[in-house]
């Protein structure tokens, strides 16, 4: 259970949202919607603990994430706006490095099958600088295939730069994670093509926080 209480976030002089309350139960897909510049990414970063809200707090299993720190982060997989993919490493080296940084255990077989699952068959040993934007995105998303045991997924625009098959396979992965009792929070401008038993939405816009 992830909760946000009375969140307010300010960037520069501007209040992005205030008085935002959220309760996300296991098995729920939460979509954060709103026009550009309304603070979707900031909200996700606040929920990750990367950004301190100007007011309010985020709680994971009834404890503040500021107090939990690594304990909360071990329950979190975040695919941000930036891919975190190094040009000078191959796809499999990139994935191995991100698994190592995240503290996930992954052997060579798991890394390769995760890359296969995101459709990078045959590109495992190509340097990322020679891959397309969509393929780099897939390397970042491949991390999710190693994060099956991680309950909370926060995904910032996961469907951008993906082709139709990529969108379909990511949707299937998200649906499977939700069915297993995971929580997925994502932003997207498309309609979410995910089958979810419990789907909720927060709409951000004009400095007003809308409760869900």
């Amino acid at each position: 259970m992830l909760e946000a209480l009375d969140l307010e976030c300010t960037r520069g002089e501007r209040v992005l949202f205030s008085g935002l309350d959220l309760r996300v139960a296991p098995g729920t897909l939460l979509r954060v919607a709103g026009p550009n510049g309304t603070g979707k990414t900031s909200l996700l970063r606040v929920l990750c603990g990367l950004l301190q809200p100007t007011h309010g707090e985020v709680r994971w299993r009834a404890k503040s994430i500021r107090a939990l720190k690594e304990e909360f982060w071990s329950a979190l997989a975040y695919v941000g706006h930036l891919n975190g993919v190094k040009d000078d490493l191959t796809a499999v080296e990139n994935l191995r490095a991100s698994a190592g940084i995240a503290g996930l255990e992954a052997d060579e077989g798991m890394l390769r099958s995760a890359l296969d699952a995101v459709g990078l068959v045959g590109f495992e040993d190509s340097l990322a600088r020679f891959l397309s934007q969509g393929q780099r995105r897939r390397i970042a998303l491949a991390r999710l295939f190693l994060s099956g045991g991680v309950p909370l997924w926060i995904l910032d625009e996961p469907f951008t730069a993906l082709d139709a098959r990529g969108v379909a396979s990511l949707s299937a992965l998200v649906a499977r994670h939700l069915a297993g009792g995971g929580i997925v929070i994502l932003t997207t401008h498309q309609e979410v093509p995910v089958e979810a038993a419990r789907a909720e939405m927060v709409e951000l816009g004009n400095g007003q926080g809308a409760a869900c």
Partner: protein
Amino acid sequence: MLRTLAAVVRRDLLLAFRQRADVANTLLFFVVVVTMVPLGVGAEPNLLRSIAPGVVWVAALLAAILSLNRLFAADFADGTLEQMLISAEPLSLIVLGKTTAHWLVTGVPVTAIAVVLGIMFDLGVGETATLIASLALGIPVLSLIGAVGAALTLGLRGGGVLVSLLVLPLYVPVLILGAGSVEAVAAGLGGGPYLLLLGALALFAIVLTPWAVSAALRISVE
């Protein structure tokens, strides 16, 4: 925990290997600065012998500053740093891994090259050995303290100049002790106390700076 540390060191070494030119630049800079000095001050052996430790140390210090911006900037730009901040393992451990890799890539070669430079300045065996020992103890301190400056100025415009201003005053004790140890040996006093103090500084930096860097990174990335 050790797995994460090893993974970070391995990744950074691999990246440094793929970006060899960047690393070579720092080393080349170090060698060029040191070799320029005799051309400037004249080839009087006694003079060169007496200024050698200071020259090598100042050049090592400048080379360390030059390579600092490589420490976090790339990870910050491509989003890897965000992933480090939300790792299930302590951030200070990852920071320690990154600075270790930075030292292995720049500090160790600088220390090794100093052997040749010692010969070039006609230093005796004892003096050269002390110079190497002081660099081996002192350069990790430069990397660790520099990491604090690099983390604080991450993402700022003109961060490079600001890093020098922040970090140079903190480098002064290392410079004095490092160059002083060799001069003490040359004067027949023995460099032991200087090296012990440098070692104490190194331990102090290894224990404390990763925490400071972690805190600075969290502020900078926000």
